[in-house]
């Protein structure tokens, strides 16, 4: 099944739990999506193989960064009628706090939805959404 068919199927059934399966890397990470009303939260369930520094221990910055890039893409597949994966132009990430060995959540804010380029702000948190551990900015080329 092509991506467009998979997306059409998810949208028709309104079954967003299937969304991470549309992106192999998101599926590999074990990413889940939680849609409540008009908002989508992405979840990276804790897994020992996501650890970067086993001494602290802390999640690998690349694992959390990759999760947030996935969250940005999945958010656009959910909030628009995109038929294909938007292309990432760039991704900038600021690590505010060390990510503990526990579940991580990400919320995506579409700062600008453009015909050609969209700008997203992505915030990852572990305790409450108002205490982000990592924030990121992403520009996407919309096809």
């Amino acid at each position, binding site marked *: 099944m092509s991506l467009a068919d998979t997306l059409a199927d998810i949208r028709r059934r309104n079954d967003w739990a299937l969304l991470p399966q549309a992106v192999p890397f998101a599926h590999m990470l074990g990413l889940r999506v939680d849609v409540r009303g008009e908002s989508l939260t992405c979840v990276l369930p804790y897994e020992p193989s996501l650890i970067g520094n*086993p*001494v602290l221990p802390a999640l690998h*910055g690349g694992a959390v960064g990759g999760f947030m890039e996935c969250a940005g893409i999945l958010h656009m597949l959910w909030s628009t009628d995109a038929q294909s994966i938007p292309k990432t132009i760039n991704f900038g990430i600021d690590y505010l706090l060390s990510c503990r060995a526990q579940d991580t959540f990400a919320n995506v804010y579409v700062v600008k939805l453009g015909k050609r380029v969209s700008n997203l702000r992505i915030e990852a948190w572990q305790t409450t959404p108002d205490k982000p551990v990592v924030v990121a900015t992403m520009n996407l080329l919309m096809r």
Partner: protein
Amino acid sequence: MNIPHDTTAWARFLAISPYTARLGIEAVAAEDGGCVLALPYRPDFVGDPDNGVLHGGAVTALIDTTFGFAVYFRIREFRPMATLDMRIDYLRPAKPGVKVHTRAHCYKLTPELAFVRGCSYEDDLEDPFASCVGVFMFTAGQPSFTAKTTLP
């Protein structure tokens, strides 16, 4: 603990990080103040199932890991530090089906910070698919690797 010069010796430190080991990130070369690491192509690293292009998130892990080791090669020790920020520009999609490399160097050190830049490419350094910069902050915490660390 001093960082070993020999690639096979420092390559073993990559496997201490479970996530790096899970992705199969490999040591390729140690350079003066920097290094080259590689990420194998695997179907579950794909970001766009229509064309098999790697997900940026897989490349992010390769870049973060390469940056960290670039700092170690500049200071020649495993000093505890944390990634403060990174910025990656995707110049073009990575070619599907092939291993990708990241080459990075630490170009500036201060007592508290290390500035790193690099690029990612398939096999031609002159034709990168991503360009990246990052800043690391030295911390008081425990490093991932210590003299007591048992190598896997």
